């Protein structure tokens, strides 16, 4: 999926796009988040399409403006449009993005199995970003933003956000 994604992105535009970050998770660039679907120059205007993580993600409007501003700084005109299909999946978060999340204190998404096990109190798979223990539990299916659930570590007792798996 990632390969297909990058095929539509003009490599010359990547450095500027990487400067734009998710307003709610500032350590994550939009490139690492995998929300940029295409970026190309058409008649001197950069055309960027992005896809929302969740339908109601309020960060999307801000992201659109941030992208336009990032290009404006380089005196480049940019237009941003939203595409819904194919729907975003957490698989599109890059390995670098996953590392950035962990370092920031958000557990990176695993797979649907991990989410289900946590919900049903089964196997403990989600790793605490503070102490690294997998002895964790889900406190709430919904978290501080649409894309996260709330967990707590049974060992170091720190609560933490887990980026919900979305496939």
């Amino acid at each position, binding site marked *: 999926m990632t390969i297909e994604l990058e095929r539509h992105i003009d490599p010359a535009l990547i450095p500027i796009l990487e400067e734009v970050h998710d307003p709610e998770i500032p350590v994550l660039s939009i490139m690492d988040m995998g929300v940029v679907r295409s970026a190309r120059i058409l008649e001197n205007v950069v055309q960027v399409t992005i896809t929302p993580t969740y*339908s109601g993600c309020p960060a999307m409007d801000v992201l659109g403006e941030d992208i336009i501003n990032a290009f404006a700084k380089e005196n480049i005109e940019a237009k941003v449009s939203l595409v819904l299909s194919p729907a975003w999946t957490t698989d599109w978060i890059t390995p670098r993005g996953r590392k950035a999340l962990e370092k920031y204190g958000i557990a990176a998404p695993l797979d649907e199995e991990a989410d289900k096990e946590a919900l049903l109190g089964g196997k403990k798979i989600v790793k605490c970003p503070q102490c690294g223990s997998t002895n964790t539990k889900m406190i709430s299916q919904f978290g501080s933003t649409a894309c996260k659930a709330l967990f707590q570590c049974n060992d170091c007792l720190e609560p933490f956000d887990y980026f919900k798996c979305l496939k």
Partner: protein
Amino acid sequence: MMKNENIIQYIYGIADNALILGQRLSELCGHGPILEVDIAMTNMALDLLGQTRSYYQYAAQLSGEEKTEDDVAFLRLEKQYRNVLLVEQPNKHFGYIITRQFFYDVFHLLLLEELQNSKDETLSAIAKKGIKEVSYHQRFSSDWIKRLGDGTAESHNKIQEAVDDLWQYTDELFHMTEDDAIALENGVGVDTATLKEKYNNRIKEVLEEASLVVPETKWFQKGGKQGIHSEHMGYLLADLQYMQRTYPNMKW
């Protein structure tokens, strides 16, 4: 031949449910019984309002007039809203909120699973995106049905009361309007009538696990899809539309 007006009405038939239920859930912001539930309710409201925006943007574009999603959401009259009566029912107590959610989530997921095969690419894309969100909602509301049904005698009685009161609004979900039929003929819409059996089975399965009883009602309410709403709708719209009506064309 399907006219744009038919598609627009078909879209309202789906999207208005998401808007009105989203509004009802938004009312709970800061009022949830516990913090986690409060966050969950508002998260679900956000998903529903996000889906509503996608549908309304598309409907506004199809109208060919210079309309925006805000015109569609805020400037129609009560009779022009196509939502079912179920979603406009008030937040009487937590049992009602969860039951209303559960009754709608089960339908919503079945609907989107079919709508993703629509010939209309935009509707198919919105549905595919929505499925991921709504399956999460259904999991949440089903879990709470079981927790309350299987909880204390008081929680059991209260949730059964809500089930008994709200069940009469479920049959309307499967009624096909003229626009629904036209959309179906053209490969755009879903045959909701065929979802009823699956729906009833799924509801029965969860309610039985929660030691609750499916009411044996013969009489079902209807009218929302034709724009004939319950008394609650007027109050809801007064709240929803206040800002746009008071300050026309205002923007955030």
